[in-house]
């Protein structure tokens, strides 16, 4: 019997496997940020331990940073203290930090791939559930809690049970105006916010193979939104071309031997998965969420499901979600007025996202009542966007191009959506209050968000496209 890709990478990283115990899994790369690491460093101090392999941990500040005037000291004292603490901890324990002001700073899941730190076949963890993003390179990448951050700092290993595996195969051609974000929102709506729990998901099929690395990252990023710890895609020429030449990617002979290994990273034809799901790409239309978990999504032209169509035991939670969102049963979302548009986050803040939005809005103006924030995923993306003149396009449309960070994805830093306001957001979570207390979130693709910015309403972007920007 052959092995799945997950099994191949996992087995190659097992330091020790004893019956009755979780595997001791070796971690190649550990990313940390300011929010989930301070208590881990404190733990090391209490135990009198150093960081075991400091060269394998990389830090950045992203969750709790302002995205405006980053050259000035952070105004909010608690945020400033937390970011300062990261700087202090990294200096004390010898960890490389790409902090505010550094040309490599950005959202942790954006900078790892961008710098060539994220590599096929590796094990990658971070105290952040969207670590699954790195799986796009054919890596085992998953989010961990702070106690585990401390474990990795102390030992470069984690105790883990091998996961179950699920393969989601997407075949066929995507329709106009339908992109990676729509694929993943469609999948989550299909299997629910809990349907992937306990699994690592391998995304496969002709549709997935045809996607760019940035689009693949968008898909893997949201694996956690169906409960899966991780999601990954077998590396191929698109992967290798992306990695080749990046700052920290292997070079010369090291590249050749790495490449030879990476080419063995695929699920064998006779490998067995614990679960399988097949999806026809032509069934997917631009998606939007209507509720308070990412599984509550529909095609933009469809009515939202009725309360009566829900399982009896689930109706109270369903009604609670619709009440929170201020949406009637069986409603269509098309035409619903919105207040904010947020284009950013580790899901959709990369160059291709910004380029698609710029191409769409060129010559158009935002609706007067809508505030539009574009938050690039990294300093490098911000610089590239400016070099390509996208800043001018956004400015002319009335969009605000801000500085890199997690921004309005999580209602932690200064960028929050006010109470009661509606935001079409390219981020990954529509939980109650996620973007600020009592804020209301519609998750969608960058193009659908851009269309809402222009019309001030939830809009089917296909009605505004003359050609397919995602093609």
């Amino acid at each position, binding site marked *: 019997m052959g092995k799945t890709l997950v099994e191949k990478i996992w087995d190659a990283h097992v*330091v020790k496997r004893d019956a009755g115990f979780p595997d001791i899994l070796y971690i190649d790369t550990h990313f940390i940020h300011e929010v989930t690491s301070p208590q881990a460093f404190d733990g090391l101090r209490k135990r009198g331990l150093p960081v075991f392999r400091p060269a394998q941990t990389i830090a950045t500040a992203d969750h709790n940073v302002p995205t405006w005037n980053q050259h000035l000291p952070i105004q909010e004292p608690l945020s400033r203290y937390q970011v300062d603490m990261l700087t202090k901890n990294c200096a004390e324990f010898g960890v490389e930090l790409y902090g505010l002001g550094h040309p490599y700073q950005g959202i942790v899941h954006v900078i790892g791939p961008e710098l060539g730190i994220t590599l096929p076949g590796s094990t990658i963890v971070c105290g952040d559930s969207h670590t699954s993003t790195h799986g796009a390179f054919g890596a085992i990448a998953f989010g961990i809690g702070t106690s585990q951050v401390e474990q990795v700092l102390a030992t470069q290993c984690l105790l883990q049970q091998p996961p179950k595996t699920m393969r989601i195969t997407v075949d066929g051609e995507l329709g106009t105006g339908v992109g990676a974000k729509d694929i993943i929102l469609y999948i989550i709506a299909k299997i629910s916010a809990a349907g992937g729990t306990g699994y690592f998901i391998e995304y496969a099929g002709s549709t997935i193979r045809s996607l760019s690395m940035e689009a693949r990252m968008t898909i893997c990023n949201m694996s956690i939104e169906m409960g899966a710890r991780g999601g990954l895609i077998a590396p191929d020429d698109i992967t290798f071309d992306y990695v080749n030449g990046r700052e920290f990617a292997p070079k010369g002979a090291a590249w050749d031997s790495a490449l030879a290994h990476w080419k063995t990273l695929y699920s064998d034809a006779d490998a067995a998965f614990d679960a399988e799901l097949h999806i026809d790409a032509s069934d997917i239309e631009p998606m939007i969420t209507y509720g308070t978990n990412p599984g509550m999504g529909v095609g933009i032209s469809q009515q939202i499901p009725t309360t009566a169509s829900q399982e009896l035991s689930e109706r109270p939670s369903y009604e609670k979600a619709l009440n929170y969102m201020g949406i009637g049963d069986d409603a269509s979302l098309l035409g619903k007025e919105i207040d904010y548009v947020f284009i950013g986050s580790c899901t959709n803040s990369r160059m291709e996202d910004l380029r698609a939005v710029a191409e769409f809005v060129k010559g158009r103006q935002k609706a007067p009542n809508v505030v539009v924030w574009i938050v690039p995923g990294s300093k490098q993306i911000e610089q590239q966007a400016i070099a390509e003149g996208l800043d001018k396009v956004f400015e002319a449309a009335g969009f605000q191009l801000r500085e890199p960070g997690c921004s309005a994805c999580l209602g932690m830093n200064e960028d929050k959506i006010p109470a009661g306001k509606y935001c079409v957001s390219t981020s990954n979570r529509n939980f109650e209050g996620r973007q600020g207390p009592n804020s209301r979130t519609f998750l969608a693709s960058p193009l659908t968000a851009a269309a809402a910015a222009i019309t001030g309403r939830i809009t089917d972007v296909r009605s505004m496209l003359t050609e397919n920007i995602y093609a």
Partner: protein
Amino acid sequence: MKKFTTLTSSVVPLPIENVDTDQIIPARFLKATTREGFGENLFCDWRYDDSRTPRQGFVLNNPTYSGKVLVAGKNFGCGSSREHAAWALQDYGFDVVISSFFADIFKGNALNNGLLPIQLSDGFVQRILLAVETDPQAQVTVDLAAQTVTIETTKEYEDFEINPYKKSCLINGYDDIDFILNQRQAIEQFEQQKAVV
């Protein structure tokens, strides 16, 4: 880590599904750099209104219910990996969370802090909720060694699963780092072999 063996307590019912970690502890409270003090903001936006007045309808503000066991709807702890969620529940005073389904990362975080997440059947969770509805003082007994939860008023019980390694960690109060640190030689050997490949 805090040890856990048995517990008999009344329960706090929260029969809501998909309780995500942003509800358990909203991100704006994650600026603290220590593990303590998160309990005061546990379920903050459900518990308090904008002026920080307790919302009467929320169970933590209802003096009828109290105890060290939270009983919640399925898919409890979904979303963010923030361990602050486990810290907040524990800091508030919970030692056990019962649900018919837990999100993966939350479950691991809880276990790593001596907060016991117990997965029971939908039916048994409903029976606990019914017992509490009948008598808000109804108690449950959690016996980790026997892996059972018993409703004291009716003496109904159900077994639960727990990884044997994690069980022994909880009973003995040791954690993963204590365990892995003893494996240092194996880790260094693994690194050397990997470098050769």
